[in-house]
């Protein structure tokens, strides 16, 4: 295995584009090293992105959004008060990843590019309307987060391309988001179902919303029908009931040792309504 530590994304793209064997990028390594050890993945070229200037930074963009570097570990997201105020749901999704030790390494970009349908930070990013900046041999492009995963372990990144930053839109006024997952334990487990809700209010009425579900399909999915169920409402009982039923019908999970398909469908509905209530309370400026 060749270990590379380029100092620019352009150089990294050049190395990746020119590599003939199996290539992996190295962010926190909490997926890559586990896969290497298990013998699942034996890269010929490992391209460490952590030496590229700026990859450890979280910066507010000119439009009031956020730019998060691809090597920012979970612990640094949680430590950023401004980001946490704007996007608590995104931060709480990432903070659920692994243990304190894993938080010291694991990144949003790695969680996304690893391509797990159960990745805990991804529903929050999708609900937030986050985009990724992608750098490759042809230059730079951006893509909505929900369009990056292509199935378990797969992404739509072309050869030589990598994510060079995660971009969150401006939070704006009267908005809130939340992420919930179900696991059988209290810590250190893979989501059986995850759900993120992001919404904005006009008075008491929901003006806009985005709902994302994890672990109920081959990729994390955006569920526009679930958003439509609550837009224009005050999240009253009827809206909650509609949201629950729409979330359940959008869930197309498999059965495995963590839960049956029927159970996952049921939980998708439960988490959607609970996450919506938390996001709503946060949008009203209440503690939740």
């Amino acid at each position, binding site marked *: *295995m*060749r*270990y590379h530590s380029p100092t620019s994304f352009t150089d990294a793209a050049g190395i990746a584009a020119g590599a003939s064997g199996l290539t992996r990028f*190295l962010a*926190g*390594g*909490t997926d890559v*090293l*586990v896969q*290497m*050890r*298990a013998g699942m993945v034996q890269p010929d070229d*490992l391209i*460490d992105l*952590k030496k590229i200037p700026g990859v450890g930074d979280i910066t507010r963009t000119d439009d009031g959004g956020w730019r998060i570097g691809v090597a920012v*570990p979970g*612990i640094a997201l949680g430590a950023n008060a401004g980001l946490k105020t704007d996007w608590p749901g995104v931060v709480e999704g990432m903070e659920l990843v*692994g*243990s*304190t*030790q*894993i938080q*010291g*390494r694991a990144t949003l970009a790695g969680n996304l590019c690893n391509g797990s349908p159960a990745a805990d930070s991804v529903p929050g990013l999708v609900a937030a309307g986050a985009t990724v900046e992608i750098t490759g041999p042809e230059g730079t492009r951006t893509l909505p987060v929900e369009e990056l995963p292509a199935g378990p372990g797969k992404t739509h990144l072309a050869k030589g391309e990598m994510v060079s930053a995660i971009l969150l839109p401006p939070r704006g006024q009267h908005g809130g988001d939340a992420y919930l997952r179900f696991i059988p334990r*209290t*810590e*250190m487990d893979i989501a059986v179902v995850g759900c993120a809700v992001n919404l904005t209010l006009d008075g008491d009425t929901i003006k806009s919303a985005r709902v994302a579900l994890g672990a109920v399909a081959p990729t994390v999915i955006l569920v526009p029908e679930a958003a439509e169920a609550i837009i224009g409402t005050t999240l009253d009982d009827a809206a909650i009931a509609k949201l629950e039923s729409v979330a359940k019908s959008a869930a197309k999970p498999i059965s495995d040792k963590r839960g049956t398909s029927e159970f996952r469908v049921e939980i998708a509905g439960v988490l959607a309504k609970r996450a919506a209530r938390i996001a709503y309370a946060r949008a009203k400026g209440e503690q939740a």
Partner: protein
Amino acid sequence: MSKIHVTTTINGDPVEFLADPRETLLDCLRDKVGLTGSKEGCGTGDCGACSVELDGTLVCSCLVLGVEADGKSVSTIEGMASDNDLHPLQRKFIEHAALQCGFCTPGILVAAKKLLEVNPDPTEEETRYWLAGNLCRCTGYDKIVRAVMDAAAEMRQEVA
């Protein structure tokens, strides 16, 4: 397979070693530097027995490549006691009999030390969450948590 020359600082001392890029920091510490205090329980980030600090951040050394330590500083369990004085956590673990086989103990001590740096007065719940990535198959955790809480109190100079 060409090896890479790594220059790093371990427990304050400059250290150099040659690493195959596939080797983990844990393997390098144990097999090249001779620091066998960090243990390998799982090798996959689940047990925390290999916990070290890398540039002040608590990590699993089994999930860090040895070559990634180049230019960084690493703190291991071997750096916890100063000369002949045990760290308060180490003393409290003995007092409370917070270990049986002891395999998990170095990792738990390294993790607990970091906890008390960022949060000198943790609640029991905070302590349990912080240590959720440190598995112990012997003690049932209760004595571990009590030892950490007691060490924290002593370090705050309260009588627990």
